């Protein structure tokens, strides 16, 4: 398992999401309304749409294509048409940098 830099803390607004690609994988990095950071797989489990284009509402991410929703803190699928949970990844903040754990 390794930690890699994603971006600076200020690069993501509160209640927003950013796409991050690394080693052929795509991730979605979230900043919650309280400032906490979270990460999931970047593609919706329904039709492989990039979640980074979606809307963050509290602790929910909505797929920009079909209205499927997930809790991005747990990966839980909340609303059809998504039925399969997202995989979550560990995130930490070190020296103003958001870091993602890969290779889990």
């Amino acid at each position: 398992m390794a930690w890699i830099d994603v971006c600076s803390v200020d690069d993501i607004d509160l209640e927003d999401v950013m796409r991050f690609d690394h080693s052929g994988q795509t991730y979605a990095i979230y900043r919650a309304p309280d400032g906490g950071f979270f990460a999931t797989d970047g593609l919706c489990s329904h039709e492989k749409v990039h979640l980074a284009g979606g809307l963050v509402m509290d602790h929910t991410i909505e797929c920009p294509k079909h209205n499927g929703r997930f809790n991005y803190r747990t990966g839980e699928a909340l609303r059809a048409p998504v039925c399969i949970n997202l995989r979550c990844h560990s995130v930490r903040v070190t020296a103003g940098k958001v870091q993602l754990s890969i290779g889990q």
Partner: protein
Amino acid sequence: MPNDQRPLVQMRDYALTGPNARRAVALGLASAEWYHSEVPRKVMKDLMARSDGPAIRDTAIWLGLLVLSAAGGIAFWGNWACVPFFFVYGVLYGSTCDSRWHECSHGTAFKTGWMNDWVYQIASFMVMRNPVSWRWSHARHHTDTIIVGRDAEIGFMHPKSLVRFALHFVGVVDAWQSLQVIARNAMGNMNADERDYIPESEIHKAITAAQIHMAIYLVTVAFAVGMHSFLPLMLIGLPRLYGCWHMYLTGLIQHGGLAEDVIDHRLNSRTCYMNPISRWIYWNMNYHVEHHMFPMVPYHALPRLHALIKDDLPEPCPSIYAAIAEMVPAVIRQRREKGYFLRKDLPPSARPYREELHREVPERSTIGS
């Protein structure tokens, strides 16, 4: 092309389980990454933001007018004076239901989830659509818009019968087919296409929903028989026929005459300016290219989205009439000319169509042929 003697093109296979479904996957047309205009992230977030206000206002007006027009129709039943009331009631029931069904299926009408869900259920009943099946088919329509073998909601299957095209406006064919589907679903029968886009875990919900719809229709018929009157059916069921004309007037121009098997909504969808009453009935779905590019933008924000990206889109049709006038000749030509579609020019400010994305489609060697 008047007096065109060329034979009709061979009927394409639009089944979701046939060879064109496999072809679409092989060509990369299924679940593809589509072209979209550039909108800054902050602006898009603002456009996608949900609110309850506009839809509560519009729903209160809608339900209020439904009650008033129904009351007028009942009060004057048996007299010619009931006709204008049922004209209004019919459009509110048989046409307005479509846009409310549609927007609530996207979950964008209201911010509050249960409001979306309730209006979705009511509108699904009015428009005679299984609320479970159609939620999934519409998701597929947005994933694979007008991709043959993938999209379950293609309105123009070539060659289009002109008789059936005309009959859409009185709902005879469509409503009858919809009723048959609901009846079939209510008996627990889901066909292969439905099973292609509905997960197994949702099938029982689709059957239950169909049974509820059928029960309401049966009770309505029982009332009509018991009362020796068509009045109950004029209020429930028949408005889907006598009031659906506006739904088709606006709905058919969404994609009619445009391209199949492309992954750029500027080639297969149509934006059209229209009068404010039609826009209210239709909940701004006249901005159809914009809606398909960014389906999570609520209906009330579509005019703003249109203003932002219109320089990257074909010139909108200036009216419903203009849209029909450009669509009908194209549909007629599509009946006899394989692969033809109306290719709309882009303004100089737009990013060009990416021809290479569509070259592999067997029906044509280059787009716009």
